[in-house]
């Protein structure tokens, strides 16, 4: 009887450990989001991807429909080639869909946002998204803003000086 009790408790222990591992895998990590593996890849060339990372979200109308699969640099066009993996269920994206890299919030992660066009044909495996808009680099924006501000003030000075 004693021995049986010990074995039951060991069984409880092992089951609890495995349950904890499963909970960590399913509930805490992104395993559940990866279950829909099948889908198709589309590529897009960007002049500048900013801080886009692999596995970043690809969204349409704010809804995540895929992930960035790989980012490589093309040394012929000097552009970044972003390969996106779109879920198989989303197979009705028009061929003239445009892609832009946006930032979630002011300091958030960068993601790819797709804007459907009006073409009757749909994107399929290996297609390229032609219309792209690069990431907005905050430093450049600030630089431009300061520059235009300074230029504006310079003009104002010229106007009021005489």
């Amino acid at each position: 009887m004693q021995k049986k009790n010990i074995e039951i408790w060991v069984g409880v222990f092992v089951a609890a450990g495995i349950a904890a591992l499963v909970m960590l895998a399913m509930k805490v990590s992104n395993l559940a989001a990866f279950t829909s593996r099948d889908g198709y890849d589309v590529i897009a060339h960007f002049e500048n991807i900013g801080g886009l990372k692999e596995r970043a979200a690809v969204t349409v109308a704010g809804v995540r429909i895929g992930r960035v699969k790989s980012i490589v640099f093309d040394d012929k066009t000097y552009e970044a080639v972003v390969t996106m993996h779109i879920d198989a269920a989303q197979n009705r994206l028009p061929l003239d869909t445009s892609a832009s890299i946006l930032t979630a919030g002011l300091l958030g992660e960068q993601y790819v946002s797709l804007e459907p066009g009006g073409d009757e044909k749909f994107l399929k495996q290996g297609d390229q998204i032609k219309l792209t808009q690069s990431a907005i680099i905050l430093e450049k924006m600030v630089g431009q803003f300061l520059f235009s501000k300074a230029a504006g003030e310079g003009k104002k000075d010229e106007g009021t000086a005489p």
Partner: protein
Amino acid sequence: MMDWLQRLGHSSLGVFERLGRGNLFLLRVLAAVPSLVLRPRLVIAQLYSVGVLSMTLILISGLNVGMVLGLQGYNTLVDFGAEESLGQVVALSLVRELGPVVAALLFAGRAGSALTAEIGLMKATEQLSGMEMMAVDPVKRVIAPRFLAGIFSMPLLAAIFSAVGVLGGFFVGVGLLGVDSGAFWSQMQAKVDLQDDILNGVIKSLVFGWVAAWIAVYEGYDAVPTTEGVSRATTRTVVHTAFAVLGLDFILTALMFGND
């Protein structure tokens, strides 16, 4: 001066001697492990004393650590208006670091010291020599099952610790402090990766289990067979395991998470 040098030399020789004996002992234990396939009951009995009896401690500490993480993380994150990231903070720190490390330290205190004391007392009361007289190899019969049980229970204990900790963080963050429950889980799931975080955490806890079990059985087997010797060996188990786990943790973290 010469005296001092001699003492330094003596103690370093002692350290290397112990390390060498420890490694030889590990080889003997590993050679004895395959024979356990025939007698799984020995391992199950040890799993009870090493794993099941540590579970209460692990559950309570995991819950508390998770709740504290939830509280402290919230206080910092709320300044940036980023309290939705609480789930991510709690889960990542538990799965990557606190789960394996704290569980290993608790394991050393709860199970490692018990193993050392048990084996040391067996040696002091000449039970081990008695077994040898009966042509029973004490390494096969006593040491190897305990070693294996330690390695096996450590990842399970660490996983239980992390899972309960995440729940503790959830109770405090969502229940007490009013973080949105959906954001808590979705931020966590978006940032915790199965392979990078959870698998690496499991690998860490396996390594720690290996080291903690090795130190515990070695210190017991190597103890001076007196009352004082056993008590010293028990202390050494806890101290050395803590050093080894924390040192190894830095190396493993640098290897696993250093390059991104």
